[in-house]
């Protein structure tokens, strides 16, 4: 097991390297110049050249990349072009908001998806199953920003029961934090809810048809006990895969949701940094996002072995 984990961690290094190359090239291929953002209306060719020199943008691209990678090995992701903060600090300041939103979205998705998926499987083909399946199609089809806007319109502007956006830290006021968390969490989590429910349902149906379920029933186990102890745990293995990938993708989904709701997390930072050509911050966020995805994958594989003792890694 230890050998397996070590090997997987080792494989992350070349992957991360490829990510840095791809991100570095993509960012430098996009049109635009950070100097125009920094100087805005004060921009003159001379001042622009000075900024380029200061940021090292006057050097050839391969040299810029090597300098970047060299700094990476020292844990230095560079400094924000916009406000000169270290990138690690810029991202670090935002991470807690994104994690809070991401986990709230995940909890929302699991609390709804697993019971509903299980019930739909048990009532396969009946009205409840049809309604639940219809809802999942809707949940998967509606992009999170559309749902977000509809939530703002309904709960924020028409009913006025929830604030339309913004953020209050948990430490400042728990009710204010939670009231601002509800809508973005639902908007972000609903796609996951829908897909998790579909996976739970289909996996549950498959498991319920297995011989060992029939055996358990034949031995006199109660229906609920069979569902809960024998079926659900096995049915959840594919769901774990999906949920694991969703954890890794929290940053990705947060890009749009955080922008719509003005939630000051890493996603909003990424969008703002892209618009202002703040390439060190964009690079840092993409790298973080890629690494979290890789770690999530590894954790998913390890959780498999725990859920299903037949799986073993060596």
């Amino acid at each position: 097991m230890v050998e397996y984990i070590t090997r997987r961690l080792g494989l992350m290094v070349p992957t991360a390297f490829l990510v840095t190359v791809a991100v570095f090239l993509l960012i430098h291929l996009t049109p635009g110049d950070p100097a125009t953002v920094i100087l805005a209306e004060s921009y003159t060719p001379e001042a622009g050249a000075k900024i380029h020199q200061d940021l090292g943008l006057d050097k050839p691209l391969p040299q810029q990349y090597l300098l970047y990678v060299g700094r990476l090995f020292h844990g230095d992701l560079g400094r924000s072009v916009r406000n000169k903060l270290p990138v690690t600090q810029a991202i670090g300041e935002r991470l807690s908001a994104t994690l809070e939103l991401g986990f709230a979205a995940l909890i929302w998705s699991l609390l709804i998806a697993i019971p509903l998926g299980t019930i739909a499987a048990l009532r396969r083909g009946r009205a409840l199953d049809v309604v639940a399946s219809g809802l999942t199609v809707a949940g998967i089809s509606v992009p999170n920003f559309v749902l977000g806007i509809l939530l703002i319109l309904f709960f924020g502007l028409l009913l006025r029961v929830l604030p339309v956006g913004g953020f209050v830290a948990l430490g400042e006021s728990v009710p204010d934090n939670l009231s601002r968390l509800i809508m973005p969490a639902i908007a972000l989590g609903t796609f996951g809810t829908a897909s998790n429910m579909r996976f739970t349902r289909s996996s549950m149906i498959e498991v319920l048809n297995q011989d060992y379920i029939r055996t358990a029933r034949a031995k006199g186990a109660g229906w609920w006990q069979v569902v809960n102890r024998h079926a659900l745990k096995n049915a959840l293995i594919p769901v774990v895969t999906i949920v694991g990938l969703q954890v890794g993708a929290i940053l990705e989904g947060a890009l749009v949701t955080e922008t719509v709701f003005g939630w000051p997390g890493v996603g909003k930072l990424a969008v703002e940094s892209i618009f202002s050509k703040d390439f060190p911050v964009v690079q840092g966020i993409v790298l973080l996002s890629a690494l979290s995805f890789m770690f999530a994958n590894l954790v998913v594989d390890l959780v498999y072995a725990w859920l299903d003792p037949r799986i073993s890694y060596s």
Partner: protein
Amino acid sequence: MRRAGILLLFALILSACGGGGGGTSTTPAGTPKTGGTLKIAQETEINTLDPNTSGLLVEREIYYNLYDSLLGIDAKLNFIPELATAWKYTDDKTLVMTLRKDVKFQDGTAFNADAVKFNLDRYMTSTDPAAARKSDLGSVQSVEVQDPATVVIHLKRADATLLAAFVDRAGMMLSPTALQQLGSKVAQTPLQAGSGPFEFVEWKRDDHLTLKRNPDYWRKDKAGHQLPYLDQIIYRPLIDLNAILASLKTADVDMARTVAGKDVDAVRSDSTLVYKATPSLGYQGFELNVSAPPFNDPAKAKAVALAVDRAQILKNVILNNGVVSYGPITPASWAYDPSEKIYDKPDPDKAKATATGFSFTLKTANTQDSIQTGQLIQAQLAKAGITVNLLPEDFGKLTLETRVQHQFDAALTGWSGRIDPDGNMYAFWHTGGSFNDGRYSNTQVDQLLEQARATTDQAKRKQIYQDAQKVVAADAVYVFVYDPVVAQISTKKVQNFTLIPDGINRLAEVWKS
């Protein structure tokens, strides 16, 4: 694409639920109330809190409430005393300023002539690559402390624009003690560094920036009450214009400077909001590169200017929230000339007779308003037999190609405007000016612009700028299209707000009912 989708959808939704009722554009009077928090939406996040490296309008908005300038301006753009109580040119190259004696910075350091020298020297000698005040103070030779309340500014050359620079960031005074202690941190956390009505509390980037009342502020209102009235100001950057509108409607913010042009009518008729607008100092239009074909032929430039229907663009793009532009000096300026209306009405026939049958590429920023303007120009010029190829580009790329490389035929650009007409003209149309993208060169214009800088009499300067403007507009080196308004949208609770054409909210006298 996704962002565009968000904007479009939200636009539809918001316009569908726009409020009714009679709107008002005046602020009700009443007895000022002390206390309360004012929440303001800013359309972009700021980069820095140090006036030395500032380049954004939204930054000035915060600075004016945190720092004091040497001079102020009123709603008609007249200079008024602020940290300096009097100022006088003793000769062309010597400006003497008398300073207030009752001002302390928020950290307790006294404001005096030494502080002025310290600040101006810091701006002039900064080695920061983003230092932006050096050029504002380019005419200053040295700063001399005559006594604690008198500072003498010696100039390299006569410069009538300096007073306007002292209203803006080049005239903003920070505590020398705080600057020395904070070092580069002043850009992030200028704790007790100003002398303004509010003190810095915290800045959580892209979330909020909080200021609190400065209890020792030196200004009082007309009844003798201590200013400011508000306890706290919270700025929130909301980059989506639809989010700003939603936040105003739900009173999640109290005030904002901008909503999307299409929403202005709905805001005006919303009984819960107050919309105020005044002509701005800025203009919109497109510049022509007169150093290369086709516009090195003056007839072709004039044909373009003759064929453009400015009123149609004003109506369709910004829904008449502005006026047709005839030159770089807008109706908000003291130098405005209402009689100058060259190229007033579109005249495709006269344009055809001047020059026709040529084509050019019009580069625009990649924004909805710019592209729509470009499309209208394209259709209008087609009537005069002129073919326009539209090329929308990323704003950074557009700036690079126009300002640095001069690689363009025509480019849609605008200017936010400056208090002094020099700021709207010199850099753009003086030979070799730093914003002279089209490499225009006209000896008469050069002489007039230099003469205006060296003249301190405002009436004479006004005439000179009007003369220079006539030449620039007639040469059609820049086709002026419209002057937008500056606006302020607030909930009804916001009282006693004065809108100044520079578009900056000054909040010392604002209170909340």
